[in-house]
């Protein structure tokens, strides 16, 4: 579904992506994990065309991103902290996006109902609480039945009930064959939801594989510990005294060899 090759991006002097390669399979939930500033959000934004890579190529469903926007009709995006036009209400925003996508766009209002957004749909977004905005943000990502969903820290700021509602929705959409890319720091959540893990460090993918493969590779029982182990090895690798060379493998090398 998504194929990224050799992505480089720097903001001023700060290198963010340094030759990132990643494949995301259709119909799966891929979790992108990495320390702060490892390039997760930048990668999402490159998929959306919000950020342009300095070098490299991204294709979504075989369509190479070239600055045109039509492909985005099939993407739903939930940014980490959504910003909405302050004076508009959620209903205006939903109507505006439906309007821009053209008539006859099928709508999925399951989350609008699940989050009980009905009573606040006509309230200006600037007076909504942070959690309420985040619910609007989530509902919006799923609203137009996208094939590919990019969820950046989806449950941050949501109360446990809303968080549960969202996770249930993610599972249902996966069962419906949608492709999801989730970035999060909540490992338990990713352990619950994801099929595959992509571990980013210093703007490169250092590991991709299933959760089982990752756990086997690191010898850890939980995703959280396995990731912590990868991060430690990655940091050690950066200082040149990595005792274990297995972390640091590139994406396209088969993990089976490692596990075996």
């Amino acid at each position, binding site marked *: 579904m998504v194929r990224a090759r050799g992505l480089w991006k720097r903001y001023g002097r700060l290198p963010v992506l340094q030759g990132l390669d990643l494949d995301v399979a259709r119909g799966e939930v891929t979790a992108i994990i990495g320390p702060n500033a490892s390039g997760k959000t930048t990668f999402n934004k490159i998929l959306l065309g919000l950020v342009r890579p300095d070098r490299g190529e991204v294709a979504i469903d075989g369509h190479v991103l070239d600055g045109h926007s039509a492909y985005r*009709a099939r993407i739903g995006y939930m940014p980490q902290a959504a910003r909405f*036009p*302050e004076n*508009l209400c959620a209903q205006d925003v939903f109507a505006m996006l439906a309007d821009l996508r053209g008539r006859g766009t099928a709508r999925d209002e399951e989350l609008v109902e699940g989050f009980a957004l009905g009573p606040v749909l006509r309230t200006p977004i600037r007076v909504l609480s942070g959690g309420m905005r985040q619910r609007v943000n989530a509902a919006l990502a799923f609203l137009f039945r996208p094939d590919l969903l990019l969820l950046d820290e989806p449950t941050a700021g949501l109360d446990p009930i809303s968080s549960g509602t969202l996770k249930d929705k993610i599972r249902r959409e996966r069962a419906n064959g949608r492709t999801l890319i989730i970035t999060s720091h909540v490992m338990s959540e990713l352990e619950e939801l994801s099929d595959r893990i992509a571990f980013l460090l210093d703007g490169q993918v250092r590991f991709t594989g299933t959760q089982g493969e990752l756990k086997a590779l690191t010898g850890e029982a939980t995703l959280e510990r396995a990731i912590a182990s990868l991060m430690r090895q990655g940091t050690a690798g950066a200082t040149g005294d990595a005792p274990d060379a297995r972390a640091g493998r590139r994406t396209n090398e088969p993990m089976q060899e490692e596990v075996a």
Partner: protein
Amino acid sequence: MTTIAKIVRYVVLDVLRNRWVIGYALFFFLVTDLLLRLGGSGPRALLSLLNVVVLLIPLVTIVFGTIYWHGAREFNELLLSQPVERSTLFHGLFAGLVLPLSAAFVAGVSLPIAWHRAVDGQTAGLLALMLLAGIALTAVFGALAVLIAGLVDDRLKGLGIALGVWLLLTVAYDGAVLWVAMTFQDYPLEGAMLALSFANPVDLARVLLVLRFDVAALMGYTGAVVQRLLGGTTGTLVALGGLAAWTIVPGLFALRAFKRRDF
């Protein structure tokens, strides 16, 4: 309806709920009303108003525009993750800035004039020209604001530059022109003066009115020169062309910056 028109609709909806724009309309309403009450006849009141217009429209538009463009990040991120081209969004946002400000100005000035029944044959022509000049200034300073905000990420720095540009074009410029005229008074300066007045959109807006009415004394030095050199219809068309260029050129640079930007 085109995508641009759809974007404009929602941006205008957002901007019209902003108290700034309402206050701006109210200000013109009160000033026009006051001038009509104090100044008596329509044309004289309008000429006093013109001097407020050429200072205030650039100031409010460039300040509001710079803040607006920085604030539009909300629309940017939201709409650019939809199937919307960057150039479409840019044009929608620009129209969403210029249209409500122009409408506020036009309504603020026209309503008291209609209320006082201050329109006769001459006033109607003058009023139409002044409204045109005001709208043109809104477009020009809107484009400058969008360019400044597009190039300077820091809000405060952008605002500082915007204020500097306003001060330069409205206050400092005429002083500098006058200084040039005094210093080089022994030389033939008409051509140079004409060029100088085209290098400043505020002067061009003044010129639009000077050409139609014998009010050169009120309109600064460059206005008088243009009246003498171009006069009449040619002058009006050339001044309008100049104002259009002052909108389009900064606008194109701003569009280029917008297309290359990371959001």
